[in-house]
Each structure stands twice: as C-alpha cells, then as structure tokens.
C-alpha cells in the first residue's frame, strides 16, 4: 500500500471531475433559466413584419384595390434552440440532404432509386442514375447506370484520373448540382443527365470571396420562420362574395417551388456574411445580393455579422412565376442568444431598402426596447430569473468566465448553446462582444459583471488558506491552492476538500494549537512530539 501517490496528479484528476460535474449541473440550471426566459417571450418580441416591400411590381403593390400590402414576415419559432443541443445537432447534421450530409440525393422509399453521394475515400461523387433506353420495338427500358464524378469529368468506372473533390459546399436543390470546392477554390456544375462537369473559373488567393453556403441559405431553419405574404387585392368577384382572395400564386420563393430552378442566379453566402449572386451558366460571381442583417443584441455588437455569429438565418430569393427573374431577397437572422431577430429586404442590386429588428413596447407603448433586452426584464418573473441566470454564471470558475470574455466573438453561435466550460452566451461574453466603449472601459465593466464570482473566489480562498494552515500544508502548496481557488472558485474549493490530506490533528502540549500527528515536530511551534495522554512506565527491559 502506497501512502501518498503523486499528489498533483490526484489533485488534477479530482479537479477535472469536479469541473465536469459542476459545469454540467450549472449548464442545465442555466438552460432552465434561459428556457423560462425565452418561453415567456411574447410573440411580439419574436416577430418582425415589413410591409410594402418594393420587391413586388409597383403596379400591383400600388393598385387602389389593394386591401393589404405584401408583408415580409419573420418570427422566432424556438428561441431555446433545441437544435443547438449536441444530440439534436449531431443527428440533424447526419440527416440526409442536410448541410453537412454527404448524401445529396436519395429516395428512401425505393431501394432501387437514384442516389447521389460523396465518397470521402475517393473524393468523388458516386451516382446511380436511371437511364431510359429505347428498344427496337419502341418500348422504353429503364436501365440503371452507376457512374463516378470528379473535378475532371465523369466515368462509369472508378478512375483516379477524374481527380478528387475536397471539402465541398453543395447546393442540394439545384439542377445541375452546383458545388464549391474549398481547396480548389472553384465552382463546379454537375449535370448528371448529360454526364457533364462544368468548371467555373478558379478564384485567386486574394479574391475576397470565401463561400460557406450555396443555394438554400439557411442555418438551424427550425429556429425561425420567414415568408412572404403577397398583397390581398379586392376584386369585384370576391368583394361581392364578401370574401377576399389574394394573388399568392404569382409569387415564387426558393424553398417552396422548384420552378425557381430555372432562374439565372444561385445565391452564395460568404464567410463575411455577404450574399452574392452566382451565374448558373458561367459559374462566375454576378454581383452582390445583400448581406446577413445584424440583430440588435443586449450589448450592441458589431453591425456586420458573419454566419458563425448567428444562431440561425434564412434567406429567400424572390421571383415572379411569369418571368423567373431574380428580383431581390429577404434575409432573417437570429442572434447568438436566440433573443433577437433581424429582417432585411434587398433589391436585385443588393441594396437594402427595408430592415427591422424585434422590439418590445416600453411602458409608454412605443416599440423602443430591443427584444434582446426586454426578454431579461420586460416580462413577468423575468427579472428574478435573469438574476438567477446571472448568479449561476457567477458560480462558474472565474478564469473560465474571463476566457469567455476574451473568446466571446470566436465561438460559433450554435455551439455556444452547448458549451460547458466557456460561456459564450453569458452576460460577460455579451459584454466582450460589445462594439461600444474602448477596451479598458469594456474590461472594467466585465469585471463588474464578474464581481460576485471574484468575491466568492476570494472568500473561498481565505477559508481554504485558514484550513490549509491548520492542517499544516506546506507554504508552496498552499500558494498553489490559493491561486487555484481564486482561478477556479467553487470548483477549486471543492477539489481541495476532496483531496485534502486526511490527517489527524491533536492539541500540541507546547503551543496549545492543533498539530499534525504525521510530523515529528509541531508545524506551528516546532516542539518535539509529546503524547501526554499516554503514561508509559519509566522502566524498560530491552536487549542491548
């Protein structure tokens, strides 16, 4: 039996376990607070409507018979963002025909159907296609063909000469399939029917375009909904029947109608948040289409947001059924915390002519308060729950809270909802993303937000220091413990309690204070060992 295996290792082991369990427990407690806060958000905190959009032809929008102008509507469906939790996120990522899926097309009702998928081993796209072959007697026979697609072409047998696609971004819904190869820095259009691969021009290293999404631009689509409501126009017919009929059938939106595929352009989202148009035929950029709007957060952040800064976004290009011409787009985004939504409408040249955020009415009844602030203080019980959330954040290790401040902008928004150790959605991280104030003022404010955590850590460190002195822990070790407790707060203190040497203390006959039994001398007064309660006899019968 070893009496003291390596102390630092067992402290680290115990500390890690404490950190994991404490972080997990606090995570769920904060999740409950956040869920209650966002569940209590009334609908008007989560909804934005923009009316009289200029995307619709003016002759229709300005028709004197218009009863209700067209409305662009966006609302947050699930502010608590269950999709952001790890398990939902994992399953949705692996789901067919989703953003990260390698299976681009597959009919799971029919085993013999067409499929298209990316084979990571070969770096090529494998496709099973159904060709129809006309027989001499005129009948058509369905023939299944398997072929392989690479950057250099198509082949019916696997062939290394076809080249290799690297990580790609795919427009799932388009025909031909358009993809962007991140490493090769070029677009490809794959026509499976004609077995043609069209290459776009290679983007140079200093080209400002860095696409991250093509076609159906959306992230966590379950979090928000966006649609275009066409104008309601009174006709003699419907007015007579006292019913209103709208002319919804003329409006096409990207996700709802595959007829849109025949349009000239595909939307491309850049890593900077800019949206560009890509010509389907030439596979070249055809100009800007707009950009992701920045929702107004609790502490106002940068006006320019990137896809990583947003919990969710959806972009809908607009066209009319008659001409399929691109007319502009509507883009809605949800902030990191899921408490604010921004909606913007862009024309066909990419100029924003309408933009709106979710706001709440203040006590006067004006819509002046951003929803990201109103959610914390504007609904019943929300102040108490906000304080609860704030205190729970302050139970987190101060060093990790400080790290959250410094890494506030660099963690992807959705993964922030499942972060355990860093807190990208905490008040301190929000302050870290505050675009106002200079660095020093921002930092002081952050320290103020962390003050309960710092006070707690200091108090715990004082208790620990006293206990460590009583127990006789060496000065160097005691300093490490003090630093560790100030850095890790409650987790550090609990770790100390768990790994504290279990030493019996007895009263020193010399100084009267508790002393360790496993030391020859009293660690306080230095006096030698004495056991006054035992009274052995003075005599001894010893050999030699």
């Amino acid at each position, binding site marked *: *039996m*070893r*009496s*003291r*295996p390596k102390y630092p*290792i*067992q402290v*680290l*082991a*115990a500390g*890690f*376990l404490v950190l*994991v*369990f404490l972080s*997990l*427990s606090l*995570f*769920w407690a904060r999740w409950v607070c956040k869920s209650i806060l966002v569940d209590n958000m009334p609908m008007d905190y989560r909804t934005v409507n923009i009316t009289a959009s200029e995307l619709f032809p003016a002759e229709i929008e300005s028709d004197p018979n218009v009863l209700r102008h067209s409305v662009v509507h966006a609302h947050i469906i699930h502010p608590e963002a269950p999709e952001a*939790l*790890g*398990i*939902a*996120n*994992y*399953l949705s990522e*692996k*789901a*067919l025909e989703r953003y990260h899926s*390698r*299976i681009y097309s*597959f009919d*799971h*009702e029919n*085993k013999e159907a067409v*499929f298209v*998928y990316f*084979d990571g081993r070969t770096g090529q796209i*494998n496709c*099973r296609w159904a060709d129809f072959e006309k027989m001499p007697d005129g009948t058509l026979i369905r023939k299944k063909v398997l072929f392989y697609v690479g950057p250099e072409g198509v082949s019916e047998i696997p062939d290394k000469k076809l080249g290799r696609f690297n990580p790609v971004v795919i427009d799932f819904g388009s025909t031909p399939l358009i993809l962007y190869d991140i490493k090769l820095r070029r677009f490809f259009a794959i026509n499976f029917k004609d077995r043609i691969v069209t290459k776009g021009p290679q983007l140079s290293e200093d080209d400002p375009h860095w696409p991250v999404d093509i076609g159906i631009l959306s992230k966590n689509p379950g979090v928000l909904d966006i649609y275009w409501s066409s104008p309601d126009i009174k006709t003699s017919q419907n007015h007579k029947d006292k019913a209103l009929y709208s002319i919804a059938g003329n409006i096409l939106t990207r996700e709802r109608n595959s007829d849109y595929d025949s349009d000239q352009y595909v939307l491309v989202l850049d890593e900077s948040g800019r949206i560009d148009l890509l010509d389907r035929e030439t596979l070249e950029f055809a100009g800007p289409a707009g950009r992701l709007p920045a929702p107004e957060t609790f502490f106002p952040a940068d006006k320019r947001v990137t896809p990583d800064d947003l919990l969710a976004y959806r972009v809908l290009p607009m066209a009319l059924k008659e001409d399929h011409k691109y007319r502009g787009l509507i883009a809605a985004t949800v902030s990191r915390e899921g408490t604010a939504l921004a909606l913007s409408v862009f024309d066909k040249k990419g100029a924003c002519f309408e933009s709106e955020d979710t706001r709440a009415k203040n006590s006067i009844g004006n819509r002046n308060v951003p929803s990201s602030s109103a959610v914390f203080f504007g609904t019943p019980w929300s102040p108490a729950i906000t304080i609860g959330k704030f205190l729970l954040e302050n139970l987190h290790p101060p060093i990790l809270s400080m790290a959250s401040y410094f890494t506030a902008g660099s963690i992807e928004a959705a993964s922030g909802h*499942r972060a*355990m150790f860093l807190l990208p959605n905490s008040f301190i991280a929000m302050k870290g993303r505050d675009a106002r104030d200079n660095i020093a003022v921002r930092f002081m404010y952050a320290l103020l937000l962390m003050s309960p955590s710092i006070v707690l850590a200091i108090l715990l460190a004082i208790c620990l220091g006293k206990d460590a002195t009583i127990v006789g822990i060496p000065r160097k070790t005691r300093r490490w413990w003090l630093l560790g407790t100030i850095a890790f707060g409650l987790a550090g203190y609990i770790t100390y309690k768990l790994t504290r040497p279990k030493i019996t203390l007895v009263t020193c006959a010399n100084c009267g204070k508790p002393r360790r039994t496993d030391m020859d001398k009293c660690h306080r007064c230095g006096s030698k060992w004495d056991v006054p309660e035992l009274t052995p006899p003075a005599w001894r019968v010893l050999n030699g």
Partner: protein
Amino acid sequence: MLTLIRREIRDNIVYFIAAVVFSAILIALLTAATYNLDWISDPAVYVGLSIPMLVILVLGFSAMGVTQMYIDRNRKISAFLSALPVTRSWILAARIVAGLLAILTVLVPLTIAVIVMGRLIAPPIPIFAGYIADILTTVFLMVFACYCLGLLTGWTANKIAPTFGALGLNIVLVSLVFVKGFGPDIKFLLVLVIVACLIRTWHKFMSTSL
C-alpha cells in the same frame, strides 16, 4: 492476474448473465424494429429506443462498480487477498478488467448484429456511415465512465453514499450526451472522465486501510 480476473468474473457472474440476456434482448428488438419499420427509419426512432437502453446499461454497470467495491470493503476481501502474493494494484486492475469484459459482453454482440443488419438491409450508399461507430463508441465510453463512477463511489462503508451518490453523478454524466451529442467532443471528455475516475479510485483504494 488471470486468477484474480476469473475470481472477479465468478463473483459477479450475475452481471455477466444479465449482460448476455440484455444483449440478446437488444438484438431481438433491433431485428424486429429493422424488419417491421420502413427500412430506413427516422433517426428519432433509434434515439427513442436508445435512451432506455442507455439508462439500463448505465445504471446496471454503475451498480456493478458500486457492488464490487462495496462488497470488497465490507467483507474485507482485499484484506484477505493482500495477505496473498498479489498487490492492491492487481486486485483493482482485475476488477476493472472484469467490468470491462461485462460491458463488452453487451456491446460486442450488439455491434456485430448492427453491422450484419446494416450489411443485409442498408442501401448501397453510406447512409449510416459514422452513425454506428460514433454512437456505439460513445455508448461504450459512457457506460464505462459510469462504471468507473460506481467504482469510485462504492469504496465506502456507508450505504447511502454509493447508492445516491452514484445515481446522482450518473444522471449528470449521462446528460452530457444531450449536451454534446455523439461527436468527437464527448468522446474526448469521456476518456478524460474515465482516466480521472480511475486515478481517484486507484488513489482511494491504495491509500485507505483494508
């Protein structure tokens, strides 16, 4: 060492038998689910089946870890064994190996069944690529981590601490799956949790009196 492992297996044979039975039940359920439902189901169905399975596995093996240590502590088995030419490290290592074997008794047949089922009924495209490996690896690591928590909390003379302590910690740890999913994050975290638990268990076992 083999003698100690055999001893542990024999002493905890109930868990091994339960593992075999549970594995058989799971394979039967999996076969039934696969052939009765659409041949590619909504992943939510598998998640729905997985959750009670995970709970039973986690609680079962955590109980095994608690039982092994609690019985040893209270019946002074290690005190007896320490008088023989074995070290405490060997006793603990044999215990952990036995636990690991019990877990593999459930998971290995299940994995084989899943792979075979996949080969038989899956379409010729990698629909389940990554799913099976990720989920099974995560389940294995989670169950082993909970077993290690059982070992850690079981080494006590108190009855309440290992029961409720292990239960509470297991519930918190299993919730990690909901937070992190089945990706590389959770695997890394679980490996660290396992290592930390084993270090703490080893220290407790080595330094307390028998």
